[in-house]
């Protein structure tokens, strides 16, 4: 992780590094101050996926995770059954 950060930021000017770091941290900041938005997103995801599969809503997890120089929306959604499609 540290190595890859160095690789990415190493020879870059500190102004650009500042910008990238801020863009990443603000995704986390904004998500953490509005849990309602994350809850709504969760509900919407459930709705869409439920059209195709039966999922376990109680065990599902969604979160924002920092991976190197980007932030990812990570979802872990246990699938119980697949619906039939014509």
């Amino acid at each position, binding site marked *: 992780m540290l190595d890859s950060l160095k690789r990415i930021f190493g020879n870059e*000017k*500190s*102004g*650009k590094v*500042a*910008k990238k*770091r*801020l*863009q990443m*941290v*603000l995704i986390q*900041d*904004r998500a953490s*101050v*509005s849990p309602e938005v994350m809850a709504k997103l969760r509900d919407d995801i459930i709705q869409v996926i439920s059209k195709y599969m039966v999922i376990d809503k109680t065990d599902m997890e969604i979160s924002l995770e920092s991976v190197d120089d980007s932030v990812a929306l990570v979802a872990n959604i246990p699938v119980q059954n697949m619906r039939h499609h014509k």
Partner: protein
Amino acid sequence: MSEVIVVTSGKGGVGKSTTTANLGVGLAMRGKKVVLIDTDTGLRNLDLLLGLENRIMYDLIDVVEGRVEIKKALVRHKKYENLQLLPTSQVKDKSAVNPADLMALCDELRKEYDFVIIDCPAGIEQGFQTAIAGADTAIVVTMPEVSAVRDADKIIGELGRSEKDNIKLIINRIRPAMVDSGEMMDMDDINDILAIKCIGQVPDDIKVVTSANRGEPVVGDNDSQAGKAYENIVGRLLGEDIPFMEFEKEGFFKKLMKAFKLSKD
């Protein structure tokens, strides 16, 4: 049409009071009737920046607690008669004024003044909620540094949650030479991050400090880059379309002149 503007930042010490003083004087120079309200109770400074520290009789707390009329508490600027300051108390606790008080006060002042500008305390506590309560517009002041920008984003979020959607940004203390060498974020970088309309970029300028020393905001001073920048912001607040200025840099030529003592600064 009058406008109530709150000057806020989140992080302390980025230039809220300096901005408030300069915009106040700048608007007054343009003939507008202006009242400035210091809401940083316990840490009042706006009086000092305006050179009015010896003229204070009453303060914001006296007004909201009904001891004096607003008119009696307002301190008139020495040079610009159309500029008034409502100072705050240097002692009483911050919870003495609540959002409803300030909203009522702003609505009263709105009837007589073109601009009511509120200097907000740092932070996001009660003092912030009180300061923003009566405002139509929020000016968020930040600096091109990571912590100041992050705190500005936090404030922008809080303003949105309080239904204050008219938000403008001022980037203060820019160092053009650092921006040029890529070691400081510039206006475009900060625009990309915060996505808020920028109405001014003010360079770091020793004249801001020397003018504060004298209690005379730098805005009238045409030899000062910061003074010029504040003048431009005043124009933009009045609806004028003013392009962003290029900062003078100490380039090769100027350095050469200096070396031969051809340039006086």
